[in-house]
């Protein structure tokens, strides 16, 4: 489905980039070997001559400095999921550098180099758990090309055949004695013609790909406070701004009084922007104190004023009607249901969810004397943001210089198609006349109430059973907002179906002869956004919890029933079997313990969860979780485990206690972690992750750990209590 978005993205993404600006920086590191792929396979630039002669925009995937430091230039954004480490692994599998001398920086520019191939290459971006997939060949080739140039340089220097020179741990060596560090040969390598063909190692020769003992290059800096995030950007003369956003979605500033605030020590300015009032201070506390002294009146003419309860009531009404659009039809579900011996029906409610990443959103903007505008931030869609920032500033996009920062969690929130806080920082900088660099730092409350939530949904499912308890009909109607409507990604809407609303439901793998999956898209003024695992965050729950309920009605074991229905889907079946076996599904559990399971495919990876729980005083305790994952060829096994462990905790937290609600009048009820409550350590179960060995192409793991844990826990609860959980989160669902 993703290639379809190209035509829609192309206009927004066709912005010429600042990559030349970057090149000057790279080229300035005298003696550096820089490797990239443009229209010719590889170019190398050292003294700059090769670059100057290059007919196409020059770009790079890595550079090697004369001290042997290797900097991988990542097209993919790292929010903590380990994509930087993954790309470094791919490069170094072929390069042979000293792992301790490898670092990674975010890069942006030429789409031929950085466009996400899983999205058809038309936009640079990170999402859909695609970083390893899009990078697998590119970054291995970059490492291989650099190694070939280095060995060729050494061969010339030593007058020995290149084929006899090895590259290992950052050292070039010939058996007869000569050796040199990568850094010593980098400048010479940069003068050489680029190899025309770049052979890659065979799978059997890999030493880093698939190596469970390889540690992340960036863990140390994340334990001693030296890993810098956007919040840590500190420029000479920089000011800090805090925002007063409208209290309701769609409201705008009518008037404001900042006279008191402006008189306060440390408050530099109070300005209006199209997104609200910015209080600009010498530092964060000055801005925060000033903010409390600003009075704003709002124009709510166009605001969304419905409460969550009112919105959900509308969804419940719609779910009983015929769907607006049909996402999947096979056989005749209506007829099969009419002829069924027994029907099972359930309606599920899913709330809005906040990403609530630990680093509240922020961005930094600085206009320079030469007319360039620099931005620092968590740039998940850097090419799109470049164009939007340029538009907000009223300058040419080529004047924008993007600094891609590491980010304190994302889960989708840094991938807003409208630029959000990035554009806001530019608006604030512009509103103060670009007199100083500005960091816009949201508070937790700004972040929680800033919209861009996982949309709320209502699902209705109906199944028909024959006299043997076989499922002969399956009808599924999903009601909710479209995430992509009105964004550059709206090509994902086909025949009235936003694929992100139905993914995981429209491709249900179970062999059921008559099936209909429908969608009704509602218009609500709450800005929606992708939230880690997107559609599968609700479709996996609805389908897997409902299937368990149907199995119970049919008197069938949930595992046996699934395996029978998965006869044409061996990868689903294999992870399910593996998880069940490792969890001891068929073994007798201690008194008071119950198990539930679920399986789901998202982003071409397959995950099954088995959860073991107990109930005490109406509350659930999840003791142990066993997960199995098939993500094809595994690059970093320990990262795969970490992502499934973390995804499990993330998904479990949402299922147990997360909900974002609009109260009377449309004001968000939650503001901080006391009312919006992600998982804490005391609720984290023991998690075991088992990886299915595979030689299939690599697929992602950033998101696929999330979808199946919720229904696995719900299915265990249903077996414990006899009651299905049809309203999330559980804190609400146990009451209803």
């Amino acid at each position, binding site marked *: 489905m993703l290639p379809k978005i190209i035509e829609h993205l192309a206009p927004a993404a066709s912005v010429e980039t600042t990559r030349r600006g970057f090149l000057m920086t790279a080229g300035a590191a005298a003696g550096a070997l820089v490797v990239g792929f443009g229209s010719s396979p590889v170019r190398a630039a050292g003294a700059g001559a090769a670059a100057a002669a290059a007919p196409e925009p020059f770009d790079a995937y890595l550079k090697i400095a004369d001290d042997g430091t290797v900097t991988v230039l990542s097209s993919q954004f790292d*929010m*903590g*999921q*380990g994509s930087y480490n993954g790309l470094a692994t791919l490069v170094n599998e072929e390069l042979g550098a000293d792992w301790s001398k490898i670092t990674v920086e975010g890069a942006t520019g030429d789409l031929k180099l950085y466009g996400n191939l899983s999205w058809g290459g038309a936009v640079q971006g990170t999402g859909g758990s695609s970083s390893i997939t899009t990078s697998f060949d590119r970054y291995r080739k970059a490492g291989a090309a650099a190694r070939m140039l280095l060995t060729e340089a050494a061969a010339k220097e030593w007058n020995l055949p290149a084929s006899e020179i090895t590259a290992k741990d950052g050292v070039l060596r010939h058996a007869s004695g000569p050796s040199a560090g990568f850094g010593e040969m980098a400048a010479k390598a940069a003068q050489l013609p680029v190899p025309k063909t770049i052979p890659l190692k065979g799978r059997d020769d890999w030493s880093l790909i698939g190596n469970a003992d390889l*540690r*992340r290059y*960036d*863990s*140390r*800096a*994340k*334990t*001693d*406070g*030296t*890993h*810098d*995030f956007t*919040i*840590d950007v*500190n420029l000479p003369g920089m000011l*800090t701004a805090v925002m007063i956003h409208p209290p309701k979605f769609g409201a705008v500033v009518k008037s404001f009084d900042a006279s008191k605030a402006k008189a306060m*020590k440390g408050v530099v300015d109070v300005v209006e922007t199209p997104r609200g009032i910015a209080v600009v201070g010498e*530092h*964060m*506390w000055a801005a*925060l104190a000033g903010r409390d002294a600003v009075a704003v009146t709002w124009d709510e003419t166009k605001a969304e004023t419905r409460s969550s309860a009112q919105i959900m009531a509308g969804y419940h009404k719609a779910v009983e009607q015929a769907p607006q659009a049909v996402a999947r039809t096979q056989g005749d579900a209506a007829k099969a249901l009419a002829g069924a011996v027994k029907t099972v029906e359930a309606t599920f409610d899913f709330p809005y969810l906040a990403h*609530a*990443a*630990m*680093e*509240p959103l922020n961005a930094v903007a600085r206009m320079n004397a030469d007319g360039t505008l620099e931005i620092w931030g968590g740039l998940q869609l850097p090419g799109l943001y470049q164009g939007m920032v340029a538009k907000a500033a009223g300058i040419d996009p080529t004047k924008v210089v993007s600094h891609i920062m590491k*980010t*304190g*969690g*994302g*889960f989708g929130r840094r991938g807003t198609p409208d630029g959000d806080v990035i554009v806001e920082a530019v608006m604030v900088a512009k509103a103060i006349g670009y007199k100083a660099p500005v960091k816009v*730092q949201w*508070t*937790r409350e700004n972040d929680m109430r800033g919209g861009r939530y996982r949309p709320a949904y209502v699902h209705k499912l109906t199944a028909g059973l024959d006299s043997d308890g076989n499922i002969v009909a399956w009808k599924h109607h999903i009601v909710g907002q479209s995430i992509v409507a009105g964004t550059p990604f709206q090509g994902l809407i086909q025949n009235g179906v936003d694929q992100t609303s139905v993914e995981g439901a429209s491709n249900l793998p179970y062999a059921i002869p008559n099936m209909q999956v429908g969608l009704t898209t509602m218009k609500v003024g709450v800005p929606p956004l992708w939230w880690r695992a997107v559609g599968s965050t609700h479709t996996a729950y609805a389908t897997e919890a409902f299937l368990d309920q149907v199995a119970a009605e049919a008197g069938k074991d949930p595992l046996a029933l699934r395996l029978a229905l998965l006869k044409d889907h061996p990868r689903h079946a294999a992870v399910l079997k593996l998880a069940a076996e490792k969890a001891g599904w068929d073994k007798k559990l201690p008194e008071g313990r119950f198990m539930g399971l679920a399986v789901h495919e998202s982003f071409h990876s397959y995950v099954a969860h088995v959860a073991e729980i107990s109930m005490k005083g109406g509350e659930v305790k999840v003791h142990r979780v066993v997960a199995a994952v098939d993500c094809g060829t595994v690059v970093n096994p*320990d*990262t795969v485990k*970490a992502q499934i*462990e*973390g*995804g*499990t*905790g*993330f998904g*479990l937290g949402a299922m147990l206690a997360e909900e974002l609600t609009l109260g009377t009048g449309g004001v968000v009820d939650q503001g*901080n*972690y*006391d009312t919006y409550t*992600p*998982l*804490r*350590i*005391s609720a*984290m179960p*023991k998690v075991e992750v088992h990886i299915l060995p595979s030689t299939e192409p690599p697929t992602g793991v950033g998101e696929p750990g999330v979808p199946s844990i919720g229904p696995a826990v719900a299915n265990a609860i249903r077996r414990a209590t006899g009651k299905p959980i049809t309203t999330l989160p559980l804190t609400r669902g146990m009451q209803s």
Partner: protein
Amino acid sequence: MPKLNINGVDHQVDGPADMPLLWAIRDLVGLTGTKFGCGQALCGACTVHLDGYPTRSCQTFIGDLEGVKITTIEGLDGKVAETVQQVWTDLDVPQCGYCQSGQVMAAVALLTETPKPSDEDIDAALDGNLCRCATYHRIRAGVHEAARRLEA
């Protein structure tokens, strides 16, 4: 002007008495390892040690810290701290890493007070430290492993 003793160094800071220690550390002293997450002592990202005791710097005010020894992630040293940081690296505990300064500060304080913590001790001591990446499984394993190495 309030005086703060941070990591063994005295700083005169130009801020009001009700300024949260977090913002003084970050914006006035320039140590950025201590993170802002919630501003309400709900997430633990801003955890520092006051005379060795783990404290949320976002709800501690600079006018109240006369004679108090403040330790941030940058000033952490000693065998327990080194062991925790090494274990965190060996087990690749962090994902995004944003909360980890606070997690490390809390873990060091726990192990200093309770050298052999149980799972329940760990949960109780670290429940105030949110990790949205949910690295909790490895944090728990990391504390146990650090305890084991410190005992050896």
